[in-house]
């Protein structure tokens, strides 16, 4: 039976969508509204030109090897399928199941560590003159109303690798009811026109906020969805209830998406099909399970560093290479000297010179790990970090927040605000008579209501490019908080941060240096970048 969304609404079954035939699958309360807008946007199931070697076309039926290496600027990334080669013909992750011709693989490319780099996006635009389904109006354009053939209509995707995420405003609770937000949201800059658009914006019949975010890697998800250290029924950062798996009732680690809006791989797949593939219907249990099974067995990590060489050689560092990642322990805190976040051992600490520079690079990577683990600096005014018992400021290291063993993301529920989207720290174009570039991201004025405390570090009125978790929770102190990202496969998937504001690993490190006044030496910076490039 084909359940139509509008039928669900008409018969008043609440805004909770149930899919599947054997096990009812609840989907977060905001998805029905998203579906209405997704179906409203035009689709562009245009023909796809033959792909570049690394581009994975939806539905092309190739087999994904058990271990597939892909070159990148720092060496090679490896994609490992723990269950062996994956026959993609007919596989719902690889088939274009929606009406715009995309599959999950469109934005989760093996060559890009199961995300998609802006370099790849630009190449795909050139190869297809923008006709690849990747550029579908629903979210591959700055806003669906724009002319699709104009690259300017896709500026955020082409410049920063950002896809449009549209979420109902006010936020919806899991049962589909409105959440009364603790703050008001005012659009003060709308370069894409989407937030003020009469059909797609906040004042449309289906009020929606548009923000722009990078696709997160679909790999190493056994770690990301762990049920180990720090995952309880109440969130360790604020004491509020954690979201739960609608099938098992177990609390979620809430680390899947940048705003933690979906608790499980299944519910995420349902939303992604609706919003990104413009799939209008019912993903049956069998297809959902195949997607989830695939996602839980795929691992990504750098397997060769262009100077340091093979990262998977026998006896090498236990924290490097995709095979080690595939066998590591999940749910483990690594911010200690018994587990380490990325255990490297001592093998690379003191090596003899080698003519090809290999050993010097290996020593640099090892020093970079020391910078990551032990180089202290003052972390200040970071919501959900300084507010959780450490004090403001706190003298700590990178590993304080990036503490998950093998992944370098937060081992507990991981959203915090380090300033990637909130002003004054978020990247903005300098405004002066000599700069013709304009910021493409929207800007929102946030005013925390009088009946709640002001934001602890930004006060009652502040500005953001993306309210992040607050678009789901409605909490004033969640504005601009973003779920931390895993650190694997970084070399394959620039740019970085949820809004793509760091174009390179150097820019990523420099952001932290500026934000927290770290004062890295050139050597520390180089070592840290080399370390990150080897993950």
């Amino acid at each position, binding site marked *: 039976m084909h359940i139509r969304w509008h039928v669900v609404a008409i018969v008043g079954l609440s805004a909770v969508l149930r899919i599947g035939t054997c096990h009812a699958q609840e989907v977060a309360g905001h998805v029905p509204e998203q579906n209405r807008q997704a179906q409203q946007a035009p689709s562009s199931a245009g023909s796809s030109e033959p792909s570049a070697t690394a581009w994975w076309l939806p539905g092309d039926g190739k087999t994904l090897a058990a271990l597939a290496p892909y070159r990148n600027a720092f060496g090679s990334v490896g994609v490992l399928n723990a269950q062996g080669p994956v026959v993609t013909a007919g596989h719902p992750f690889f088939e274009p199941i929606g009406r715009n011709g995309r599959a999950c693989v469109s934005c989760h490319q093996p060559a890009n560590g199961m995300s998609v780099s802006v370099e790849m996006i630009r190449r795909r635009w050139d190869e297809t003159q923008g006709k690849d389904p990747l550029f579908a109006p629903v979210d591959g354009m700055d806003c669906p109303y724009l002319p699709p053939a104009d690259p300017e209509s896709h500026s955020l995707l082409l410049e920063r690798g950002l896809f449009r995420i549209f979420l109902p405003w006010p936020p919806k609770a899991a049962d589909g009811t409105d959440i009364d937000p603790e703050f008001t949201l005012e659009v003060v800059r709308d370069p894409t026109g989407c937030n003020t658009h009469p059909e797609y914006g906040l004042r449309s019949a289906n009020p929606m906020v548009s923000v722009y975010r990078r696709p997160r890697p679909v790999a190493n998800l056994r770690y990301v969805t762990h049920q180990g250290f720090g995952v309880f029924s109440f969130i360790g950062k604020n004491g509020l209830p954690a979201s739960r798996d609608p099938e098992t009732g177990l609390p979620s680690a809430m680390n899947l998406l940048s705003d933690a809006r979906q608790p499980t791989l299944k519910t995420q797949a349902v939303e992604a099909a609706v919003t990104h593939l413009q799939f209008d219907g019912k993903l049956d249990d069998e297809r959902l399970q195949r997607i989830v099974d695939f996602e839980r067995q795929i691992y990504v990590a750098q397997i060769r560093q262009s100077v340091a060489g093979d990262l998977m050689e026998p006896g090498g560092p236990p924290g490097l290479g995709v095979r080690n990642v595939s066998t590591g322990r999940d749910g483990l805190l690594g911010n200690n000297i018994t587990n380490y976040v990325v255990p490297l051992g001592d093998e690379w600490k003191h090596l003899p010179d080698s003519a090809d520079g290999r050993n010097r690079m290996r020593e640099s990577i090892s020093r970079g790990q020391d910078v990551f683990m*032990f180089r202290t600096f003052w972390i200040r005014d970071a919501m959900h970090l300084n507010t959780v018992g450490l004090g403001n400021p706190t003298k700590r290291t990178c590993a304080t927040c990036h503490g998950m063993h093998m992944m370098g993301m937060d081992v507990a529920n991981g959203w915090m605000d380090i300033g990637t989207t909130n002003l004054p720290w978020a990247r903005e174009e300098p405004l002066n008579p000599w700069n013709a570039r304009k910021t493409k991201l929207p800007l929102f004025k946030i005013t925390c209501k009088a009946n709640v405390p002001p934001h602890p570090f930004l006060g009652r009125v502040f500005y953001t490019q993306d309210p992040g978790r607050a678009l789901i929770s409605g909490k004033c102190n969640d504005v601009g908080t973003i779920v931390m990202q895993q650190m694997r496969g970084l070399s394959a998937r620039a740019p970085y941060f949820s809004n793509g504001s760091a174009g390179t690993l150097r820019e990523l490190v420099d952001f932290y240096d500026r934000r927290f006044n770290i004062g890295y030496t050139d050597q520390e910076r180089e070592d840290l970048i080399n370390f990150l490039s080897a993950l």
Partner: protein
Amino acid sequence: MSRFASSLFMMFGASVSLAATPATDSRVSFVSCPIVRDTSSVPCWLAEYEGVLYFLTLQTDVSAPVNPPWLGHKVLVEGVVSGEADICGGRVLKPVTLSVMQELDGSCNTMLPAEDRYNLTFEPPRPPGPSRGRLAFGNPMPAGAPAAESAARNFTLQYEYDGMVAFRHAQTLQRILETARASHATEIRITGFRSASRLSNGSVMRERKSIAQERAEQIRALLQGAGLDGVRYALQVKDLSKRPNGSEDAARRRAEVEIVSPN
């Protein structure tokens, strides 16, 4: 862990028994800007009142019984001056309770550099970087813990001044949830309290009028949000803000939860 560090732990741990400490002249309650002083290890937190510098706490981790305050905000300090040797140049308050004031105050911005004379003379509970393996927290409900003992069915949540549920309450709420489930609770009785604080200068700070009700309702909402349905919730409030005495004020900022079950 050194003897000094053990002593420090005991000092912090004792803060929860503030109500049992008799009021004496050595008690101080004041609102001022916190000061952070760097050391060769973890920073320490201080505050000045009437020309005296007091030591409040050290940076530790989320498990610390006393969590450091925040620059950018004033802090309400309620503590007892101990006779112990100064730490980081400040007279030690033991026990001490700290409440970060919610409004921002840009004048609270003092960071002092490390000086050899103020370096710690003991090993802190954890260094400023990775720990040596001690976890900040474990399973909040060890296996077998919810055995139906009446003593385990009463829980207290302590709050900062004008505060609601925060990170430090997650584990207590988890224990309440698991105990209620394990004991097949039929009723959850929640009492929210409002308190006031008498400061050393004689003035009185009273929590907002509605806070007792808000605290009780929030706990109910959180337990329901975590899936504790099918039980009766009985809420009541108590206003203890009329006669602050300067010694029990912090302990009165609380909510009590009683789990009622058939056995």
